[in-house]
């Protein structure tokens, strides 16, 4: 994995000024068009076998997440067990992609999913605010990696980004990427705090140029999280980035996706925007917790023909 920028962008990241020129030179986002496109793709009707396929795909793309101050080792173990066997009554149910926890819970999570292909992702860099010194953030990352995290979810410094210090944000991502070593790096922009679609596009390019393996919408801790429109915008960014550099980068919408219907809309966005190459949990993830239960209930409905209820899935 290259930690140096793709050669095409060596000039752009040479200085704060050149980086600003590059990012502000990206085409502006047509807000109305973007939202209309996202809304129209959300009207697709997906039924029967296509729905069954989509539900299984969505389950396999979930980063089953618990990021609470009240997390205990027991809760993380329960989460791990659920990731490995989402529906114990039906062993054909696919596993989720990963569990996502705080760094101090990585070792516990690792034990809980041992022997399966479920990955352990850890948020780091003073998640969710990202307000800490760089050394503290890097220490956070190293600790998570040392505990065995397969993936690191970092937050960018939104303050620096909004103030226009793009190079600072860039260098921080590069440093975190280096500290992550072999772990895949997801870069969280917290789109709800970036105010404009133009900013989301800029942040996407900035993250990709700095070596992100995934770009992720949000932490799930603010009012506005993943929306179809901002995810569509990021999917366009990864598509264009691959066209330009040949490097494929993943996308992870997180927060606010609770129903099967929503999840299927996102999968339509992926297929129609980035393409079917991204319809794989190596390249697309959902950051979610309650979504899994709804997917399981829908799955039970498809296999038994009767509506299921929350009594038949775990409480988490």
């Amino acid at each position, binding site marked *: 994995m290259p930690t140096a920028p793709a050669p095409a962008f060596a000039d752009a990241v040479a200085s704060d000024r050149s980086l600003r020129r590059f990012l502000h030179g990206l085409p502006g986002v047509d807000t109305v068009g973007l939202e209309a496109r996202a809304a129209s793709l959300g009207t697709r009707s997906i039924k029967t076998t296509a729905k069954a396929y989509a539900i299984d795909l969505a389950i396999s793309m979930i980063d089953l997440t618990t990021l609470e101050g009240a997390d205990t080792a027991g809760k993380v173990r329960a989460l791990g067990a659920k990731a490995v066997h989402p529906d114990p009554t039906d062993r054909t149910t696919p596993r989720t992609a990963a569990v996502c926890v705080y760094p101090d819970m990585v070792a516990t999570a690792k034990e809980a999913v041992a022997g399966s292909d479920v990955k352990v992702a850890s948020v780091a860099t003073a998640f969710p605010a990202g307000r800490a010194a760089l050394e503290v953030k890097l220490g956070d990352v190293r600790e998570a990696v040392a505990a065995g995290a397969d993936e690191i979810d970092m937050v960018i410094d939104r303050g620096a980004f909004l103030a226009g210090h793009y190079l600072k944000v860039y260098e921080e991502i590069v440093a975190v990427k280096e500290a992550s070593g072999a772990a895949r790096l997801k870069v969280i922009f917290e789109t709800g705090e970036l105010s404009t679609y133009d900013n989301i596009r800029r942040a996407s390019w900035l993250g990709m140029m700095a070596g992100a393996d995934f770009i992720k919408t949000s932490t799930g801790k603010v009012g506005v999280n993943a929306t179809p429109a901002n995810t569509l915008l990021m999917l366009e960014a990864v598509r264009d980035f691959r066209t330009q550099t040949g490097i494929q980068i993943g996308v992870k919408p997180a927060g606010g996706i609770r129903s099967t219907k929503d999840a299927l809309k996102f999968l339509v966005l992926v297929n129609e925007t980035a393409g079917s190459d991204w319809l794989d949990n190596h390249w697309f993830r959902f950051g979610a917790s309650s979504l899994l239960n709804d997917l399981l209930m829908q799955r039970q409905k498809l296999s038994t*023909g*009767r*509506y*299921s*209820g*929350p*009594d*038949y899935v775990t409480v988490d």
Partner: protein
Amino acid sequence: MSTVERLTVFKTYKLYVGGKFPRSESGRVYEVKKATSAAGAAGKANWLANAPLSSRKDARDAVVAARKAQAGWAGATAYNRGQVLYRVAEMLEGRRDQFVREVADAEGISKSKAAAQVDAAIDRWVWYAGWTDKIAQVVGGANPVAGPYFNLSTPEPTGVVAVLAPQKSSFLGLVSVIAPVIATGNTAVVIASEERPLPALSLGEVLATSDVPGGVVNILSGRTSEIATPLAAHQDVNAIDLTGADGDADLARDLEIAAADNLKRVRRPQAVDTDWTTDPGTDRLTSFLETKTVWHPTGSLGATGSAY
């Protein structure tokens, strides 16, 4: 000077789900006609309104709304529930004329007979409102046991109840099946009479403007068998009242079989021509209650014989 005749503003009858008034998710409607004995000539003059023809997805959405409202409604004090239900009766009184007209059209009876039905329905509502904080004393209480224990039984609501409203009595029968279900803290998904749904849909407007939280009562109109079948099989419905399956023994049997899958409480249909004006008793209240019994040690703990 020519006078322009005024155009009547027709009412769009809509479902009542989760405190809102959606159309059917399917977009379908069906024609509701006057009961034959009241209608004069055949044809268009019989037409009353279009009612939403609910689909199984409307039923599913209604169950979600009812489940969401259940804990809050069951958690309200019995006294508060009684006040809220009494408030519904107040609202009904204010809309009395509208219900008299709708019941007369729906059931093919005279205005005066319809008025008697509506009055009885409002009284029935008040009667059940009074029961909210009394039913626990009647069916619960301390049990004598052979040991040093307090043994107390208390009734608790069953949960989400699917209610098939009676097919003939469009308003008094309807109130007589909804009120006892919600009085004890259950939430209800109600399937209105298939051919006489308008008073039920108007009842939704009354509930929305009283203090009943959204989702406590959800009212669907459409083909009873089409909506009841997914509800009877639904794993998140705790009980089903088959009153409206009167006159269709096959449907009632199929629904009961489907309901057995998750051990729903089932209330079987009664005679088709039930006289709803008679005193209902507490039977319907207790149909959808679960009894919780608590054992608590009592008696002496120490050598001194002191109890706590």
